């Protein structure tokens, strides 16, 4: 499989259309999910996917090797998703100043406490403002300083947005529990 991808990658470097299509088929599903986790709608995510793949294929020479290609492509998708949100959705962050990050109690809780947990549902319902910081912090393993640089906000704002996202998660799970209890 790896040998095969190496060959495909080498062909894609020469702008071979078939190789590019093969790469698209391998990564498009995963990248669409990543884009959708940021922009929420499927149509917008597909727009992001088009620009991200075009960028990746035209600049494939900048990617060091076939092993780092998935990470490199994902970085492009995330950046393009953020650019898309900036262009098409108005998000206003207010500068929160020096904010201390609240504890990760909710995130450190045992997963067994959340049966029938659906991450897609959580991300679809989470407000966009929190979600950008939450996604970058939890899924892309970015630090607050890096998030501040990417979103052009202060470090304090990044921390306060993450705090809000955590609080929202607690409320979301409590609400789910209540709904289940009511159903029972």
């Amino acid at each position, binding site marked *: 499989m790896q040998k095969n991808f190496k060959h495909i990658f080498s062909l894609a470097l020469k702008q071979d259309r078939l190789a590019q299509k093969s790469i698209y088929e391998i990564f498009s599903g995963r990248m669409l999910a990543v884009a959708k986790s940021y922009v929420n709608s499927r149509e917008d995510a597909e727009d992001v996917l088009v620009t991200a793949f075009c960028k990746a294929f035209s600049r494939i020479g900048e990617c060091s090797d076939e092993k780092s290609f998935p990470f490199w492509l994902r970085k492009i998708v995330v950046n393009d998703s953020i650019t898309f949100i900036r262009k098409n959705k108005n998000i206003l962050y207010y500068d929160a100043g020096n904010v201390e990050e609240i504890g990760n109690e909710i995130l450190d809780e045992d*997963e067994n406490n959340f049966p029938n947990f659906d991450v897609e549902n*959580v991300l679809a319902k989470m407000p966009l403002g929190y979600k950008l910081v939450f996604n970058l912090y939890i899924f892309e393993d970015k630090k607050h300083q890096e998030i501040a640089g990417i979103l052009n906000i202060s470090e304090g704002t990044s921390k306060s947005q993450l705090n809000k996202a955590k609080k929202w998660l607690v409320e979301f799970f409590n609400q789910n529990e209540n709904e289940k209890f009511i159903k029972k």
Partner: protein
Amino acid sequence: MKNSLKNKLKTEYENLSEQPSQNVWGRIEAELENTQEKPEIKIPQKFSFWKVAAVALFFISVGLLLNQLMNNKIAQNEEYFVQKENIEKMVPEGNQQKSVSEKENHFQNSIPESTKIADHQSVNHLEKPIRKIKNPESETERIIFSEKTAIASKEDSPKSGKIYLVNEEKKIPVIKEQIKYVTAEDLLFEREASKSLKEQEKDTRKLGDIGVNIEKPKSVKILGITVYSEENK
């Protein structure tokens, strides 16, 4: 790795996958074709030609300017031309040797110390004369050299009776003060000046004399009273 909510979120997120619409690849392909066509637009050849021509013109003009400046500098600082014909006319046959040695002395004095060494070296280069001419009147042997900077050495010329002359056609630049010749304009100006001086000497007019001749009246009467009359004098 503990089974926290964070890890569950991560693993579930990494497993997310969704099949895109059928037309997405078509859009990517079309976009790629458009972007690949764009870099093929080349700058017209005429533009690069003009660029090269402009650069060449610039260098040529700079070169000419520098050449002109250098020539002016040489003409100002190093002008000393020795010609065969001038020497023959100006120097009598008997004094030819003397005059040449005098010129040498003058030349040696006029050039700075630093250049003397170089000139002496240039004399040493005068080993192979191109041709020898015998002048029947002066009975002196003239040796013509092809070297531009040929100068007769002090020691050789009086003893051997040979006069080293410089190349007939070429001029030798030597450091000397610039000779000022009287020009025709100067002569004309001097002539005009002397003329005006002579005219000034002849002029007998006085200050305040406007040059209008008024006849002296014989008598002057004011209100019937004779104020002035020549007869009363």
